[in-house]
Structure formats: structure tokens, C-alpha cells
């Protein structure tokens, strides 16, 4: 028996070794840079599932035959953690993609990124949406190439069935009434008037954007109306209740694509997703876009958004080439390349918008187009070294208000108290 065991182990080892060797079995060995080409490395998340990267890299390589871009593919889930670890080890990846502005602030403030004011100036400061977020005392350490903002998705069929033409110029009160009207239950299938995903931004960032509030101020009175609206929707059953959505890890895509929700406030990143799902025949939802509901009915649209940017690593092996790449990617060429796959570029000018609306499958009605040019796009979360810690507290207290353990007033007081004592040190 002993001998057979040993033999089995030996066999397994040789099999394992033989199968993989030391090189790794999932794909060909790293491509060596070919004759004289510069090998530019760019950190990205989920390369296969985020087509914008491939669009940008292919476009740049075509325009610059002497450069070979190699993506450093990192899982989306823990992207910042891995980047932080790699940088701590002195990694020389050339271009770092900034997934959100909070991480950007951390890297930039710690001197991990190169200043790229020149690049930003060339691209054009006025046309780059969301650029303000990257301004640290007049210096830019990254340039945004993509800017997602929030709008309202709606299911045209469900609205028509309820006799509503389109959700035009809604205030939050009108929106609530509409959502309640759209909520139906027939044959055991419940259709919710709207779906609010569990992220705190759905309440808090909207409130901040439309009331001019500051989310790291420690004063959160401006959240109140938005919480009341959301809780009322939840209480009347016009949206899936928060506790269920959170514990069941409800997918907003499922809610919208299976017609379980008639409306849904969500970011523009979902446009590419829903287009793809329709193309693959995975959903037949007839969808449209509308501006986010507003506080007042003065016709002015405020929403919030968050930019995604490229930065140059302090230890980059090819700093010059990295700058050139960012100049291209954030500029018009790059913007057109990602527009073609439904991603909203940071650079906004007529040429780019035209390219965007040529996209196949995109709703072409006036309201959808209007949704695309909000009057004001606030930053989802202000950039500061306090942002991460504040974000955590706001998240925790958001939970408690939404599951009904704290009243809105108590929750808001508690947020303020905790942010002041734990973050602002007052």
C-alpha cells in the first residue's frame, strides 16, 4: 500500500510538471519586443471584459507602428490593492490606469505619479470633462479619457403599457408617483416601477450634486430629502427593498434586462453592456435614456459622474512614450475609438458626440440625446486624502438607514458625528 501511495504521488507530480512546466500553461509565453519596437506596459483591469482597453491599444498601435502595447491585466475586484502592492515593490509599469479618483489622490499625493501638465494642455483643458478632479494645486498627474455620469434608463414598453409616453423633465416627486404607477403584479410576476441599486451614491451623490453639498464636510443635512424619497419608494413597494437587494446580491442588469424594473437610475457604463446583451440576443428590452430626475422643475439637469484616467508611473521604464500614449488616448483619436464601442469619452466636442450617436442600437429619440448633455456633472466623491475613510463611514450609515434601523434624521446626525470625530479629527 505504501508503495502504491508513493507511486501515485510520484505520478501526480510528474503529470503536473509535465503538463505545465514552470512557464505557465494558460497561453503563449510573453511576447518579446520585436525588432526595435518600444514595449509600453499599461495596467488595466479585466482586459477581456473591458473592451475599451483593446480599442485604445489597437488604435494606438495602428497609428504608431513602432510601439507595442502590453496590457498588465489585473482583476477588476481588487485592482487598486494589486497596483499598490506592485508599486510598493518598485514596479516599472509605464502607464497606470486610475480606476477612481480616490486612488488617484493617494498615488499622486505620495509622489508615485509623474506630473503631466503638458499632456493636459495639448489635449485641451476645456474639452476634458471631469478634469477638475485631477487638479492638485495646479498640477495634473493624470488625464481622464473616460467620463461616466448618471442618467435614467427606462423600459419603453412598460411605460407605454402604463400610458406614459416618456419620463421627461421629472422632479423626484413626479418620479416617485410614476414609479408607483408603474408597479404591477400580474400572474405572480412583480414588476417594480424602478430599481435603485444598493450603492450609497444612488442617494448621497445625487443629493450632493443637486444640492451643492460636500460629502466630506461632516454636515449631511442635504441628504435628507433624497433619503425620504428613496425610503418612500421602498415602503410603497415601487422598488426592490434594500435588504433583499443587498443580501441576494441582486444584479441591476437582471432587474432591467428581464423587465422586472421599468426605470433605473444608473451610470453611462451600462449603455455598452445593454447594447451587447441585445446584440447577443440575451434580452429584448426596448430601452431609452432620460435625464436623472431633478430637485426642481426649472429644466436644468444636474447629475454626478466619475472619470477614469491614465497616469505615468514615477518608475516608468518609458516615460516619454507613456506621455505620448496618454496624449493620444485622452485626445480626439482615443475618444473616437472608445465611442465606437459605446463608452463615453472624457473629451467632449461635436466630432466625438457625432461618432457616439452613430453607434448602432443606441436610442435616437430627442430625450435620449438630451440625457446625454447634462448641464452640470458633479464629481461622485470629492478628491482628498479624507475621501476613503469618509466613504467607509457613509457606506455603513447608509446601510442602517436603508434597512430601517435608523431614522433618516438619526442616521444623518450619526454620519456627521462619526466623520467629524474619526476623519476630520474635530
Amino acid at each position, binding site marked *: 500500500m505504501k508503495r502504491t501511495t508513493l507511486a*501515485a504521488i510520484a505520478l501526480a507530480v510528474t503529470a503536473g510538471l509535465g503538463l505545465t512546466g514552470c512557464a505557465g500553461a494558460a497561453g503563449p509565453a510573453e511576447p518579446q519586443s520585436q525588432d526595435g519596437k518600444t514595449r509600453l506596459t499599461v495596467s488595466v483591469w479585466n482586459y477581456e*471584459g473591458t473592451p475599451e482597453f483593446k480599442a485604445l491599444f489597437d488604435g494606438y498601435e495602428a497609428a504608431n507602428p513602432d510601439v507595442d502595447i502590453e496590457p498588465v*491585466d489585473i482583476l477588476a475586484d481588487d485592482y487598486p490593492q494589486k497596483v499598490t502592492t506592485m508599486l*510598493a515593490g518598485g514596479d516599472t509599469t509605464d502607464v497606470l490606469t486610475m480606476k477612481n479618483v480616490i486612488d488617484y489622490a493617494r498615488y499622486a499625493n505620495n509622489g508615485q505619479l509623474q506630473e503631466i501638465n503638458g499632456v493636459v494642455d495639448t489635449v485641451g483643458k476645456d474639452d476634458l470633462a471631469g478634469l477638475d478632479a485631477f487638479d492638485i494645486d495646479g498640477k495634473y498627474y493624470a488625464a481622464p479619457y473616460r467620463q461616466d455620469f448618471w442618467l435614467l434608463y427606462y423600459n419603453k414598453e412598460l411605460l407605454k403599457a402604463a400610458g406614459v409616453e416618456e419620463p421627461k423633465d421629472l422632479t423626484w416627486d413626479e418620479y416617485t408617483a410614476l414609479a408607483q404607477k408603474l408597479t404591477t403584479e400580474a400572474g405572480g410576476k412583480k414588476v417594480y416601477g424602478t430599481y435603485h441599486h444598493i450603492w450609497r451614491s444612488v442617494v448621497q451623490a445625487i443629493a450632493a450634486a443637486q444640492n451643492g453639498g460636500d460629502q466630506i464636510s461632516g454636515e449631511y443635512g442635504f441628504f435628507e430629502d433624497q433619503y425620504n424619497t428613496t425610503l418612500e419608494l421602498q415602503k410603497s413597494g415601487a422598488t426592490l427593498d434594500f435588504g433583499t437587494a443587498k443580501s441576494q446580491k441582486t444584479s441591476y442588469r437582471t432587474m432591467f434586462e428581464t423587465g422586472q424594473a421599468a426605470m433605473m437610475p444608473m451610470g453611462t457604463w451600462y449603455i455598452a453592456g445593454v447594447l451587447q446583451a441585445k446584440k447577443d440576443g440575451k434580452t429584448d428590452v426596448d430601452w431609452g435614456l432620460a435625464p436623472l430626475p431633478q430637485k426642481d422643475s426649472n429644466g436644468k439637469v444636474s447629475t454626478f459622474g466619475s472619470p477614469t484616467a491614465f497616469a505615468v508611473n514615477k518608475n516608468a521604464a518609458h516615460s516619454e512614450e507613456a506621455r505620448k500614449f496618454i496624449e493620444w488616448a485622452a485626445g480626439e483619436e482615443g475618444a473616437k475609438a472608445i465611442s465606437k464601442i459605446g463608452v463615453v469619452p472624457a473629451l467632449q466636442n461635436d466630432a466625438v458626440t457625432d461618432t457616439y450617436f452613430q453607434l448602432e442600437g443606441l436610442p435616437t429619440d430627442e430625450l435620449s440625446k438630451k440625457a446625454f448633455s447634462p448641464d452640470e456633472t458633479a464629481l461622485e466623491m470629492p478628491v482628498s486624502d479624507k475621501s476613503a475613510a469618509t466613504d467607509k463611514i457613509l457606506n455603513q450609515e447608509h446601510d442602517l438607514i436603508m434597512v430601517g434601523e435608523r431614522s433618516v434624521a438619526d442616521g444623518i446626525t450619526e454620519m456627521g458625528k462619526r466623520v467629524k470625530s474619526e476623519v476630520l479629527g474635530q
Partner: protein
Amino acid sequence: MTNMAEDLKAEAPFAGEGLAPAPEDRRRTQRDSPRERKKRTSDAVIYGVLVVLVAALMVPFIWMVSSSLKENNQVLTVPIQWIPTEFVWSNYTDIWTRIPMMGYLQNSLYLAVIITCLQVLTGSLAAYGFSKVRFPGRDVLFLAYIGTIAVPWQAYMVPQYIMMQNLGLTNSFNALILLQAFGAFGVFLMRQYYMTIPDELCEAARIDGLSEYGIWARVILPLSKPALASLALLTFVNTWNDYMGPFIYLTSNRLWTVQLGLRSFVGQFDAEYAMIMTGSVISVIPILVIFLVGQRYFIQGIATSGMKG
């Protein structure tokens, strides 16, 4: 080592009358005594308990299998849908082309096998030193081993990474093998098992002129098959399912393991849960094979049989 006599001896009752006779045994005592009948009743009861238990334990796994046969936007529905409206068998063919699943499986297997072998070998060696040889400082050193288990990896992974980077070991399998093969877990497990093996056995072997290494190889190792099996099994499973370690250390896609591959279905704002579940079902299969092989060593009595000899 095993023969019929020992198998029978293995049946010595313990902790209750529930111990069932081996099948051959049952045949022999067909014209059964009341005791025999009682045993069969208790067997039935035990089967009943086990079946209920297993049903309760398998529910999430069943959800996993069911989800692996759905379209992605049908997975996380409210309320839960147990049976797919339409069986999407193509998930099981698509996954091999969507990601290099075969390569990931090979990488995982390579890591798990190497790490398990090293862990079992060095762990059982060190355990002998910690349990059967007495020398000054032994227990303090042992406590240091256990102590480090208590430190969450999240706390020291960055210093460790910097060290590995300086040694030029990051982005290679070697980094992970070195990190995980010499853990304290195996030493601790094996030491505790060796403690249950009476010292008289070693003493007798010493008198017979065996060296300490000889005792380890010829007396202790053969006796500790159940422990070796459980150590191997648990190490294999933990390595196979490890996510954070490979995530931090393996950057090139061609080095990725199954767990990393499955996470690549998680995007920035949403995830393809149908594919993740499909991959998870596939990745359970190797573990099941290992388990079915390993659990054969959990047969009472083998370990200490021949102890009197």
C-alpha cells in the same frame, strides 16, 4: 499492512453500538443474533440522519449547479429560481474558449501538487523533531510557529512582496511555492498526530538499533497515514482555492490559476455569475477526486495495528 484480521480488529466497537460489520462479516453472521439485528436498525437510523444532513449541506451547491446552467441575467433573480427556465448547457462548452480554462487548471494543479508534496514532507519531518525529540528551546520555537499562523496575511503581504520582488521571484510559481510550502499548518497538524502515537514504539525501535531517521521513516510515517492524508487533502484544497496569494504574485495571464480565471468574469460594475458558477463547478471536480482517494485512509485501527509487535 492491512489484512483481514486487522480489518476485523478495526471493528472493535467504540462510542456506541453503531459500528457496522464489514459486508463479508454480515454474510457470515446471516442467522443473526439480536445484537446483529440491533446493529442493522441503528445502521438504518444513521443512514437516515446522514441523508437528511447531506441534503441540508448540498443546497448551496445545487444552486451553484443550477446557476451554471442559466443565462447570466437569470442567475441573481428575486426570488431565487431553482430550476432554469431554459438549460444553457453551452456554458460548459463556452468557458473553455472564453478563458484559457485548461491552462488555468494545469497551473492550479501544478501549484497544488508541488505545494502539497513539500508541505507534507517538510511538515512531517519537522513534526517529528517537535514531538519525539526533546531538546532545549523546542517548545518556544514551536509556539513561534503557531504564533505566526495567528497573523493575518493581509498584515504582512506587502513587506513579503517587497522582499520577493528584491529576490526577483515575483510573477513566478516559485514565489508561491516558497511562500506556501513551508507553512506552520502542516508542522502543527503532524506534531499533534505524532503526540498520539505512544513513545514506547519509538523506544522499542531505538532499542532495535534504528536511528531517529529510521524511526521516522519506518515506524512513524506508516502509522500516520490518516494524518498525512488529511494534511495532503486540506493543503491541496486550500492551495487550489487560494485567491489572494496568486492574485498578488502572479501577474502574467499565462500563470493564472483557476480562481483568478474565474474572477476575471467580475467586471468593474457587474459580473457574469453564470460563467463563474460554471467554472466553480468544474474546479470542484479535482478536489472530489483527491478526496475520494484520500478518505480511504480514514479507516479506524490501521494506524495502531501492529503496535504490540
